Structures are given as C-alpha cells and as structure tokens.
C-alpha cells in the first residue's frame, strides 16, 4: 500500500515581493484612509478652476459672512458661506489647497535635495566630512524654525516664492539625519563593495547603488516633510508674514476669520479642519509607507 495522498496537496505558490507589498498595502487601514483623503484633496486642487462654484477673489459686499448651508439661513449658492468680504468660502478653500500643496511639495523638494546630499556624503565618507556635516545638522537644529523663518520672510517680504525657498533652506535636517544613518548602514554592504571593486566612480556608487536602496526611507521622510512645510506655511500666513492677501492660503483664511470667530466659529473651523485633514492624511501615508516597506521596524 503506497500513500498517494501527498500528490493531492496543492502546490505551494510563494507570493512575489510585489504581491506581498500589495497585500500589506491593502491591509493597512491608516495608509488607505490617508491615501483616500489625499487623493480627494489633490483632485480638488487640480480641478479647482473647473469645479469651484465662484471666483475665489470676487467680493460680494452685499453678502458678507453668510452662513454655510447647514444653518437655517444658509443657501446652496454658497455651500460653505462667504467670508468678511463676501467671497465664496468653498471656492477659496479649493484654491487654497493648491497653495498648501504647492508650498509643501516645493519646499520638500528643495530641502530634500540639500538634506539628502549632505546625508549621503556624511554617511558614505565618514571621518572629518561626517564631523563637519553633523555639526551643520546640530547647528541647524539649534535654530528655532518659526522664529527664523518669520524674521527672514518679514524682512524680505512675504510671497509664495520667498516662503518656498526659506522653508526649503530651513527644514532639511530630518532628511540629512535619516539619510546619513541609512547610508552608514549601506556603506559596508556587499554590492557597494562590489561596485567599488569593479572600479565604479564614487558619484556613480552614491547615485546608482546607495540612493536607490534607501528610497523607502527617503519617501517616508519626504512625505512627513511635506506635512511639516504645510504646517509652517499655515503658521507663517496665520501670523501675517507668509502668503499675502488676497491669496486664499488656509492659514491666512484662519487669520482673517479670527476677528469674526466668536459669532461665526465655522469661519475658522472650516479651513482649520481641512488643513488638519490634509496634514493628517500625509502623515498617515508616511507612517503607512514605513510600515508597509519595513514591517520589522514597527514600534
């Protein structure tokens, strides 16, 4: 009697890395929620000229501080009401998403370039180079971001470009710290040694061997820094030294609504909640990407 049963067992199929990644992504609730909110906000930002019900700058002084539609006197003409100059709040909110995203992404790109370059160089070469760059990082961390950004923007004069550059030059520290330690870990790894052995140039090793292998870490920091830049822009604009009126920056909208918030609390609640949602979505995605790509590192 031979045992034939084993032949009936299904063949074991190992999932490919891509499939594993996909499964983890679909199961990660935080990432999905964050992605959903972010996709929605990005879509609204891109489509603002098409879907906004009114011109965000058009002032209708006869209909100032009109309540949103859920109040008894609200109307669908202005679903989120109007501000103190009679401008349609929903339209301003939609165009405001463009400002937040533009500043967040641009500032992240600038700070990412600075921080990643510094981090890779410090981590790869070590020694004196590392000492100097670590010192730069410590120095940067010792400077109060809000205070310095505020002072510099105020002196130069606030505008979209100025804010992007000032923030870009200020918030590279996390990039540098994370990329530096990732590079240190990769430095001794076999494929880097192999690339050295076959005579690849140092820039080639850095760009083609080291950088691609820490892309996950880079993406996580990049996401979190977009959120960081958005929050800083909002704070600067709130303090009146960021994006200048009449641009519909969410921080500026809260600042302009502040004087009326006791009678019409929604005027600060709406941009505030949307701003928090955007930052929350980006943070959820950043944390999600970290969990999905490196589940063993979860605390």
């Amino acid at each position, binding site marked *: 009697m031979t045992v034939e049963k084993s032949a009936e067992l299904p063949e074991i199929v190992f999932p490919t890395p891509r499939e594993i990644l996909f499964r983890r992504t679909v199961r990660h609730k*935080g990432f999905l929620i964050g992605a959903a909110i972010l996709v929605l906000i990005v879509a609204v930002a891109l489509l603002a000229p098409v879907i906004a019900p009114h011109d965000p700058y058009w002032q209708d002084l006869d209909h100032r501080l009109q309540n949103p539609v859920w109040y008894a006197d609200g109307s669908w003409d202005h679903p989120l009401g109007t501000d103190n100059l009679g401008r349609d709040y929903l339209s301003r909110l939609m165009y405001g998403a463009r400002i937040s995203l533009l500043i967040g992404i641009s500032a992240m790109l600038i700070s990412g370039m600075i921080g990643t370059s510094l981090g890779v160089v410090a981590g790869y070469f070590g020694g004196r180079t590392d000492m100097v760059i670590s*010192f730069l990082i*410590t*120095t940067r*961390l*010792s*400077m*109060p*971001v*809000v*205070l*310095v950004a*505020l*002072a*510099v923007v*105020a*002196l*130069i004069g606030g505008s979209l470009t100025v804010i992007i550059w000032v923030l870009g030059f200020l918030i590279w520290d996390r990039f540098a710290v994370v990329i530096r330690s990732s590079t240190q870990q990769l430095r001794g790894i076999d494929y880097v040694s192999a690339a050295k052995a076959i005579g690849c140039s140092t820039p080639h090793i850095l760009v083609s061997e080291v950088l691609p292998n820490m892309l996950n870490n880079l993406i996580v920091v990049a996401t979190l820094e977009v*959120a960081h830049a958005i*929050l800083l822009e*909002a*704070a600067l604009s*709130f*303090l*009146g*030294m960021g994006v200048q009126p009449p641009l519909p920056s969410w*921080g500026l909208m*809260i600042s302009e609504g*502040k004087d009326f*918030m*006791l009678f019409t*609390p929604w005027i*600060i*609640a709406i941009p*505030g909640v949307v*701003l*928090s*949602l955007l*930052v*929350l979505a980006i*943070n*959820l995605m950043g*944390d999600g990407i970290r969990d999905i790509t490196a589940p063993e590192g979860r*605390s």
Partner: protein
Amino acid sequence: MIAYTLKRLGLALLVAVTVSFVTFMLLRFSGDPAVALAGPDATPEEIEIVRVTHGLDRPLLVQYVDWGRRALQGDFGISPYFNQPVEKIIGNRLSITMTLGACALSFAIVLAIPMGVLAAIRPNTWIDRTALTVSVIGQAMPSFFFGLILIIVFGVMLRWLPISGSSTWKHFILPAVALGYYATPAIMRLTRSGMLEVLGADYIRTARAKGLRAGKVLFKHALRNAIIPVVSLLAVQFGFMLGGSLVIETIFAINGVGFLGYESISRADLPMVQAIVLLVSMFYVVLTFFSDLLNAYLDPRIRVK
C-alpha cells in the same frame, strides 16, 4: 566622563558661535537694517545718516565681531522701538515665557507618559489604539488652530477661563494646553516603545517570577528604565516649545519673549530679533548639552562612542 563632558562642552560652544553668526548674517542679508531703522518715510540722505551713526556702513564681519563681543558681556544694543537696552526688555519678559513653557511641559508629561505606559501594558487593544489616534491627530492639528478652538470653547462658550493676558495662573492654563499638546505625541510614542521593549526584558520576567506585585514591577523596574530616553526627549521638546511659544503667545496675547519676538519682527526691531533668536537657540544648545550628559551618565556606552 570628564573627557566626554569637555568634548560636548566644546561642541556646544562651537554650535553657539556658529548659530549666532548664521542668524546675524541671515538677518543682514534679508533686509537693510538702516532702511528699517530710518522708517518708511525717510529720504535716502536720512537713511545714509542712520547707516553711519549706527555703524552699519562697516564690513559685515566687523559688525558681527563687534556685536558678538558686546553680546558676550550681556550688551545686546538698544532697541530702536523701546529706546532701551534689549537685554532689559527681554529680561522682564523671560519669566513669563519660562512659566508658560514649564506649564506646557508639565501638561505634556501628565498626559503623555500615563498614556504611553497604558498603551504599552495593553498593546493592540482599544487603549493602545485610542492613544495612537490621539497622537496622530495631535501631530496633524496646527497649534494656532487648536489654540483658537480652546479660546472659543473654554473662553467664550463655557466662560471657564480667561483667554488673553498673563496676570493670574488661570491665564496660563489654555496657552499651556495649546503649547503642550504638540509635544505629547512624541513623548507618548517614545514612552510606549520604551516600555514595550523593557517589559519584554528578562529582568522583568524575573521580577514577576519572584512574585513582586504587578504595580511594583511596572513602576520600579520597568518605567524607571524606559523613562531614560524620554527625559532627554523632554529637554529637547522644552527647547522646541520656547521657539514655538511665539505662535501661542501671540494668540493669547501673553507678554512673553515669543510675543515680543513677533512684535519686534513686525516692527523690524533688528537688535531685539537678533537677541531673541540667539537666546532661544542658546537655550536649546544648553538643554541638549545637559540631556546628552544625562544620557551618557545613565548609559556608559554612549561615552565611548
């Protein structure tokens, strides 16, 4: 330990000098102080006179060295707005900001550490998830928006607490909450992960095995070890808070250094702005210096590195 201390001290001094240099140059390159001093209606001739009388026509490096030398002696120049020495004005306001910072830090500790400990004792339960949710939302909400909500709810709707000024202890409650909550997610997460790590350690199993009460194991054996990295984080967070208190002080009209900084920036009062940026940076440098020392003292492995 002495060698380590000296090395750290040297580094801290170097950072302090570099920060002062960078901020000095940054402010000088961002705008012309002579124009700011002379006021908006000044003619070009008047601006030139201001430039020469304040020594702003000299090379930048000379101006920096001169400013730095006086700053070391505690002389930060005269504020053109107050017409008084900068250090005198700041000195009057410093205690208010320190009080606010201390209250905010206490609030963050009282909220974050028990939450982190609870989350670590019962990982992946509703307690853990609630703590995580609170921390994720806390990180997303801008502090000025949270401050305004506090004003509307507790100051205006419920009328429990005053919303502006700093005359009584009650005035500090709302701003301290608004400032402190921003530090809670980081503290909570670190407490949680530290506790999780420690609770899995052998000596905790031993302590439990020999029949110690759960509470004693938790607080005497686990928390004491898990709290070490949290303490140094607290020092760093306190440094951040002094920088961040600018926004909160402005919202609640608290006459501290942060509000002074904001007003001075609006008035282009450069000597004042320079002194405040330097002061906040120095505070951060000193705090991280002590937190490094504390870490090295508690964990000898750091000293060798």
